């Protein structure tokens, strides 16, 4: 058990290190750097006097900017300087925002985690009971109906669902579904009222982000449980004279849930990458839109900070769900 924990933790640290290298490298791949796209945009926007300066002036300015941001140094030095600061919690400047990166993303990171957690809770609260019911009542009308609705949920793109819900909420209820806060709570400090406002706004994005996950989880839960329902230990429990629902919940459902626990960790990156478009559509103050924006502007440091944070969250989430699985499944715990 302890050996398992140590092994997993070491593996997790190594994975995080690899993620940091890869996130740094992948962002480097496209031609040009932040300064190129910064100057290009200034030329396009005819802003800052760049248009009037000569070609040499432009080049000089470029070199100066490169030096200022350390972009002229070799790649590995850029990486180590960056990671050295990151380990101390200093992510550097967000070039576009002219603010420390941490200030740009900390609220958004928090809201992203809250939204992901709400979506996971929503997904499980809906999918597990439906999965159980459809497996136990296999081939009933309810089973076929949920299967049909589930496939619809799987097939509908999240952003389309977001648009439809926004339209309907606005037209029929005169209710605006954007954001995670009402205007009056947008930029005030935390209070009980603001937390409640967040809670009220949270469930629509959670529902939108959770639909395809819910539909998928229903199918997995149903298939797992159908497998378990056929096992001899269920027949034993039935032969003991236990009431049907009680024995189903105690034995096969318990066993069928185990493999699902290990999927919680994978849900996280899926939710975050999947939420980018929805976040843009619903103008949610989460990490997704900032990541997208930083990729457009080729802000290497901002993008790799976000990717690194998401990677770390995924690895930690997976580690936690692995540990949870070990705690609930004696077959793994003992061997």
């Amino acid at each position, binding site marked *: 058990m302890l050996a398992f924990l140590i092994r997993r933790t070491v593996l997790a640290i190594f994975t995080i290190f690899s993620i940091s290298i890869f996130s740094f490298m992948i962002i480097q791949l496209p031609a040009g750097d932040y300064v190129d796209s910064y100057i290009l945009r200034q030329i396009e926007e005819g802003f800052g006097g760049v248009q009037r300066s000569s070609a040499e002036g432009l080049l000089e300015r470029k070199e100066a900017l490169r030096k200022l941001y350390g972009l002229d140094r070799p790649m590995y030095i850029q990486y180590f300087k960056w990671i050295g600061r990151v380990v101390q919690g200093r992510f550097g400047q967000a070039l576009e925002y002219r603010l420390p990166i941490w200030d740009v993303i900390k609220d958004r990171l928090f809201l992203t985690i809250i939204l992901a957690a709400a979506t996971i809770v929503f997904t499980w609260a809906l999918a597990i009971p439906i999965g159980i019911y459809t497996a136990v009542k296999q081939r009933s009308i309810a089973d076929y109906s949920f299967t049909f609705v589930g496939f619809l949920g799987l097939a509908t793109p999240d952003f389309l669902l977001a648009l439809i819900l926004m339209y309907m909420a606005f037209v029929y209820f005169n209710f605006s579904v954007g954001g995670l806060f009402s205007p009056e709570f947008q930029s005030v400090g935390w209070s009980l009222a603001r937390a409640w406002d967040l809670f009220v706004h949270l469930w629509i994005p959670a529902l939108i982000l959770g639909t395809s996950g819910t539909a998928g989880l229903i199918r997995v839960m149903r298939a797992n449980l159908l497998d378990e329902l056929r096992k001899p230990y269920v*027949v*034993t429990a039935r032969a003991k004279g236990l009431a049907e629902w009680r024995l189903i919940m105690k034995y096969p459902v318990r066993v069928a849930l185990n493999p699902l626990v290990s999927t919680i960790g994978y849900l996280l990156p899926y939710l975050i990458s999947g939420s980018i478009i929805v976040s843009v559509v619903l103008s949610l103050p989460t990490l997704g839109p900032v990541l997208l924006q930083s990729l457009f502007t080729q802000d290497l440091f901002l993008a790799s900070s976000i990717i690194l944070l998401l990677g770390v969250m995924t690895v930690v989430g997976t580690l936690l769900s692995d540990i949870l699985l070990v705690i609930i499944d004696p077959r793994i715990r003992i061997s």
Partner: protein
Amino acid sequence: MAAGRGTPLISVTDLEVHFPTDEGLVRAVDGVSFDIFPGRTLGVVGESGCGKSTVGRAILQILDRPGRIVNGSIELRLDPETDPDDAVDLASLGPNSGPMRAVRWADISLIFQEPMTSFSPVHTIGNQMIEAIRSHRGYSKREAREWAVELLSMVGISNPRQRIDEFSHQLSGGIRQRAMIAMAISCEPKLLIADEPTTALDVTTQAQILDLLRELQESQGMAIMLITHDLGVIAEMADEVLVMYLGRGVEFGPSDDMFHNPKHPYTTSLLTSIPSIYTKRGERMQPIAGSIPHPFNRPPGCTFNPRCPSFMPGVCDHDPPLFLPLEGPHLVRCFLYHDAQGNPVTAEAENDG
């Protein structure tokens, strides 16, 4: 065995179980009658797929979906000695009804072939035993646990106080089956259905488990329905024998009669297909000439007719034979002994068939 036959504990009459599947109707049990006597062992034999397990599960009404009892009765006499008329027909009870659930484990319990998978992988042995005890007895948790520990040592498990908190995958195959037996006798049932209890075990362990079953039968006075492929095991353990073929009972009678004077040609082929049944245990049944017909393509008349050495054209391939008594308690389903109207056939007619 010591006990006389007396009044049956369980009388199964004309039992039929169907599985309506997408591919067609599977007549898993298609007419079976037999008796189980208190404190005695009924052996059930037949080739794979003939419906042995289905009969066992039908008695407890724990058939897999979409199985259903469509005909016949299963009469259980809770007190056959003193009150032979007090019988419930289990087939008439709803599978999830209170009375049916009360019969399970308390009066009739069950063990199967795979001791590995008959216990839940995520609950301890003790948890599952205590649950069984407490759902039929008004024991406190502590009393139920004490009783479970006692049962475990009764079936020969050493260190029961430690073993009770282990999971089934921590035990060896033989110990697991012993624990299963301990759980099965925890409410002192009148009948234990053992569905191939030794098939998954090695030969030495097989012998130990069979010995254990016999000892427990002696001390508890329970009846055993022993389902097996192994005629050697039947010869050793059974007082009565039921032979099944393609869902039908073809012969039922006292074990001695069956081994020394088998009536049905299928029983005869079974016996001759094993060289020496009294010396070799653990040997699987040898296949008989011909193959088992597909369940959806059963021959008309007697389903054994394509493989039968005594096949009578025009007789055996028309109407199905009936499962009728011969002399005494012996039942047989064959036109060698009964005509289509169910009248006994004389010995002379039998020989030129």
